[in-house]
């Protein structure tokens, strides 16, 4: 068996004592155990890489409540009519069958850091040597007055993909002629910085075909947002007169909603809406808070290996992490997962550990065959993940460049989902 490095922390007689204690904990098992909570871009990737590269030397358990995972990335393309809903769905069968990962479909509801166990809603308790939390986001209660999770069937957020995405699309398609779609955009930081604006583009694309006199109003608490110039140029070009955005100067950050009346109050002006897409303020998925690794809304990590600043045996990936300069994106979570997997494997089996390097690219579709992107490389520096060099699409690029960017995003989707789910 591979002996955990931790066993060698003691010296002489102390080491002998140390050798016996973890053996009891691992009795009947013998292998180091990694538990991963959350089967998205961070968690599925980390589980797969640890299982694949350790070649059976590490037991990997992946805890994910959904049997079919619908990717948030590309879900806007479904709203725009460029993807079928089923195109977004992925299952965990290959992770179980080809990689030997113990896939548990349950909710993690607690972490006992002293006993090193994760408790599940179903009642089970799962022991770990290293715990990887990749729970994505939850919403900050009360961030949009009038809205809470009990009315998400009336005013959907659709920022966790699945039934919410289907609901939002159905609502858009059922809008009365000339009706108003209102988006309440979230404050920073949030999942997928260009996501709300790609969504507006895709909904505008759908409406321009089925309901061209409809209007889109964005109430936005942010002064500016990702790829703003590129989005605004696209809206002008493809959907002239359809989209209006109220930033904080025009009360876009002072919003309340009334789901029973389907109204939105923006700085005292009440709008009657056909569809209201409320994207509340976000925080780390609840299990990070329950594990006690959050500081404020997010979980701070060490940029060298994604380990929690609160506990060296817990790692936090993706949207839930406060890591520095990377945007909260599926690409970023997938990138962070590989650095983490390398470090966790090294800690448990003494395999080689290499320096952390991170990458991100966010593609957005603004109209048919018109893709834009922003990306950067990152490395640990100054105690955080720091941006090294970046790039962004330019306004006025010719159609061939934009089409190539869109095709690249399709390639990336195929690549990252293969990288996540095998």
């Amino acid at each position, binding site marked *: 068996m591979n002996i955990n490095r931790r066993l060698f922390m003691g010296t002489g007689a102390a080491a002998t004592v140390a050798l016996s204690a973890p053996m009891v904990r691992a009795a009947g098992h013998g292998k180091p155990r990694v538990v991963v909570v959350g089967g998205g871009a961070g968690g599925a990737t980390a589980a797969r*890489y640890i299982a*694949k*590269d350790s070649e059976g030397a590490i037991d990997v358990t992946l805890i994910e409540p959904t049997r079919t995972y619908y990717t948030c990335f590309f879900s806007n393309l479904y709203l725009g009519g460029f993807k079928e809903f089923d195109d977004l769905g992925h299952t965990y069968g290959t992770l179980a069958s*080809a990689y030997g990962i113990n896939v548990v479909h349950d909710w993690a509801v607690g972490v006992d850091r002293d006993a090193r166990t994760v408790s599940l809603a179903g009642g089970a308790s799962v022991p770990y040597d290293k715990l990887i939390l990749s729970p994505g986001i939850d919403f900050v209660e009360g961030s949009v007055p009038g809205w809470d999770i009990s009315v998400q069937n009336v005013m959907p957020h659709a920022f966790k993909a699945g039934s919410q995405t289907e609901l939002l699309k159905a609502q858009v398609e059922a809008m009365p002629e000339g009706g108003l779609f209102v988006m309440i955009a979230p404050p920073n930081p949030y999942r997928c910085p260009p996501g709300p604006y790609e969504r507006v583009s895709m909904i505008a694309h759908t409406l321009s075909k089925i309901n061209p006199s409809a209007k889109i109003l964005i109430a936005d608490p942010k002064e500016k947002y990702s790829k703003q110039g590129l989005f605004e140029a696209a809206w002008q070009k493809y959907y002239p007169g359809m989209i209006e955005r109220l930033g904080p100067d025009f009360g876009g950050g002072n919003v309340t909603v009334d789901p029973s009346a389907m109204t939105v109050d923006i700085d005292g002006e009440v709008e009657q809406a056909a569809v209201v897409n409320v994207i509340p303020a976000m925080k780390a998925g609840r299990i990070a808070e329950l594990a006690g690794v959050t500081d404020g809304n997010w979980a701070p990590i060490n940029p060298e290996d994604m380990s929690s600043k609160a506990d060296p045996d817990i790692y936090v990936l993706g949207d839930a992490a406060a890591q520095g300069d990377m945007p909260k994106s599926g*690409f970023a979570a*997938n*990138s962070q997962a*590989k650095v983490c997997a*390398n470090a966790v494997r090294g800690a448990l089996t003494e395999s*080689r550990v*290499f320096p952390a*390097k991170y*990458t991100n*690219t966010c593609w957005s579709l603004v109209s048919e065959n018109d893709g834009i*992107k922003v*990306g*950067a*490389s990152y*490395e640990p520096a100054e105690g955080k993940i720091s941006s*090294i*060099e*970046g*790039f962004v*699409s330019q306004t006025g690029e010719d159609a061939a460049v934009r089409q190539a960017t869109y*095709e*690249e*995003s*399709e*390639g*990336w*989707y*195929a*690549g*990252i989902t*293969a*990288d996540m789910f*095998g």
Partner: protein
Amino acid sequence: MRAAAILALCAFPAFANEAEELLLAETGDAEYGEYLASECTSCHQISGAMDGIPPIVGWDEIAFRLTMHHFRNKTREHQAMNVIAARLGDEEIAALSAYFATLNPEDDG
């Protein structure tokens, strides 16, 4: 690799400058390359499948190194690849080429 590199330099003297010569002479650490390759496989599928992004498995090592070098020094332009290659040293490019050369299209790494 060194022998192969020298052969390559003889075969394509017009393409070899000092920087390329040093890169081609570097010994590739395939295990390091496997780790670094995980950055590539977010987009380039390990199966070699192509869906809008070119396959990069099973390449000749010399071709792989020179391609990455040209992205690095921006004689070949691509926004994402220029940024990704910019932070790779000769050791990293050699490691990646050594690893990807061990893969065949359709093999699952």
